């Protein structure tokens, strides 16, 4: 199995791009990544693109062919990957495996979602396609509702407080204020969160990631090729796992089994422990999921995430700098693009290109969740190639 590295990154700003179509967003991110890598379009041998639900958001399937078409790269193999909000990470992982196999040397892995072309109620319905349509969606259940069930249970089992959850959003916004690509580049307070409207008790509006448009792309190269680039960032560990699709089928509501399996695999492959991770982008589609991730990824003990956050451990430069990009909550969450965007932030941190939000970092981690945790991908990146 060959090693692979990220040698180029590019993304659109995240937000409400009324003026841009999905195809335009995807091409903008792709071109930025090609320029960042300083390669030609013709160097790219294949494309992988993550997208959750363009079929419902804009009536368009077959997005992989459309993306190469619009990018002027017609001919090369192009594949769409989907696992709800983890679609971007699936595209990245398949791209890496394809390069590792020897089939390609340079590929592009992208993610894109256009969510603002629909009315709010239809967005809510569409997002429930990530859950179990027959046993959750048909009841009028919503995604905030599912995570609210997890939040309520976490509060019950571990005395986690509303304020502790709010702090996760506050941290994201603090970082987003320094990220020009973020949808919400401003700070908020715990009071702002607690006074925002209830969406699904106990979750409030400022616990929830927004509806966003956006795209992100990275260029992946095989070991030999990557070494010719200036600043390759190496994928040193990767894991993907699944859990039951419906929340009521899970043994626990306060831990994502798929995160634990994927993280175990990634840490083992990387040969490092959670304590070695300097910076991590975790999947805070809702504040509660950020807290649960801290536990499942081994950054703190089970049930202790609320206290961990309260004690300042996730701030920039603390025990582990969490969501320096702003995270899904404050940077934005165009679902198919999120996994790739997380990788871009970690690559920038490891390159030392994050400007005011830069932290000292040798190892970085991404954690991308599909649905309520039925799919999870964890990647670990390093500045140095780890010999296998």
């Amino acid at each position, binding site marked *: 199995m060959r090693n692979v590295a990220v040698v180029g990154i590019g993304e659109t700003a995240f937000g409400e791009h009324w003026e841009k179509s999905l195809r335009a967003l995807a091409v903008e991110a792709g071109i930025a990544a090609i320029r960042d890598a300083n390669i030609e379009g013709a160097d790219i041998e294949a494309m992988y693109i993550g997208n959750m639900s363009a079929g*419902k958001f804009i009536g368009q399937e077959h997005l992989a062919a459309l993306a190469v078409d619009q990018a002027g790269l017609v001919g090369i193999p192009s594949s769409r990957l989907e696992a709800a909000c983890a679609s971007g990470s699936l595209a990245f992982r398949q791209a890496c495996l394809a390069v590792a196999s020897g089939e390609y040397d340079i590929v592009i892995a992208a993610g894109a979602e256009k969510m603002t072309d*629909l009315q*709010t*109620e*239809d967005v*809510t*319905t*569409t997002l*429930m396609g990530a859950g179990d*349509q*027959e*046993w*959750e*969606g*048909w*009841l*009028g*259940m*919503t995604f*905030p*509702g599912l995570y*609210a*069930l*997890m939040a*309520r*249970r976490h509060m*019950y089992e571990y005395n986690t407080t509303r304020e502790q959850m709010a702090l996760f959003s506050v941290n994201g916004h603090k970082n987003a204020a320094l990220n020009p690509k973020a949808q919400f580049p401003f700070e908020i307070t715990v009071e702002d969160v607690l006074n925002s*409207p*209830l*969406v*699904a*008790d*106990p*979750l409030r509006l400022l616990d929830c990631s927004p509806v966003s448009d956006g795209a992100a792309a990275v260029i992946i190269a095989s070991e030999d090729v990557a070494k010719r680039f200036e600043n390759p960032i190496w994928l040193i560990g990767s894991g993907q796992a699944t859990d039951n699709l*419906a*929340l*009521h*089928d899970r043994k626990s*509501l306060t831990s994502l089994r798929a995160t634990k399996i994927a993280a175990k695999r990634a840490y083992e492959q990387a040969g490092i422990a959670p304590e070695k991770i300097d910076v991590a982008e975790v999947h805070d589609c809702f504040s509660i999921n950020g807290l649960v991730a801290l536990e499942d990824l081994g950054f703190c003990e089970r049930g202790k995430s609320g206290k961990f956050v309260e004690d300042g451990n996730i701030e920039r430069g603390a025990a582990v700098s969490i969501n320096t990009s702003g995270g899904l909550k404050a940077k934005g969450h165009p679902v198919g693009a999120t996994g790739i965007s997380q990788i871009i932030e970690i690559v920038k941190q490891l390159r030392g290109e994050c400007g005011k939000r830069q932290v000292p970092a040798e190892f970085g981690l991404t954690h991308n969740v599909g649905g309520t945790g039925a799919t999870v991908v964890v990647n670990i990146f390093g500045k140095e190639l780890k010999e296998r």
Partner: protein
Amino acid sequence: MVHRSSVPMHWRLYESRYNLVGNKCLVCGEFFYPSKIVCPNCRRRGILKRVVFSGKGKIYSYTIIRNAPRGFEKYAPYVVAIIELDEGPRVMGWIVDSKISDIKIGQRVSVVFRKIYEDGKEGLIHYGFKFRVIDENNQLRD
């Protein structure tokens, strides 16, 4: 964008949804709702048998949906919970006909049969189970 579904999509599920029918693996003893196609513990050695659940259980977690998806706008806010049935499996359902102050984790509930939603103005009307709060003697609270 609402899923304008056909009749078969729902009648496939009628027995489960109307009568709270699931199954049980005779080998490992675990109960399942909805019915499993394969026992996840025993796989091809499992023997799955139809079971009708009592419909009694307790609240495992709950929320109040305030921003409803298309088709459910007129019902919001409504309470959706995960119920742990006395036989073991957990199911998702609304809690109705109950005081909000009675709805908490651990509270006992019992199944009722109700309309779930209408599929547009001229579409299907879907029915299924919901739950309501009962006391420790399985009696309705008033």
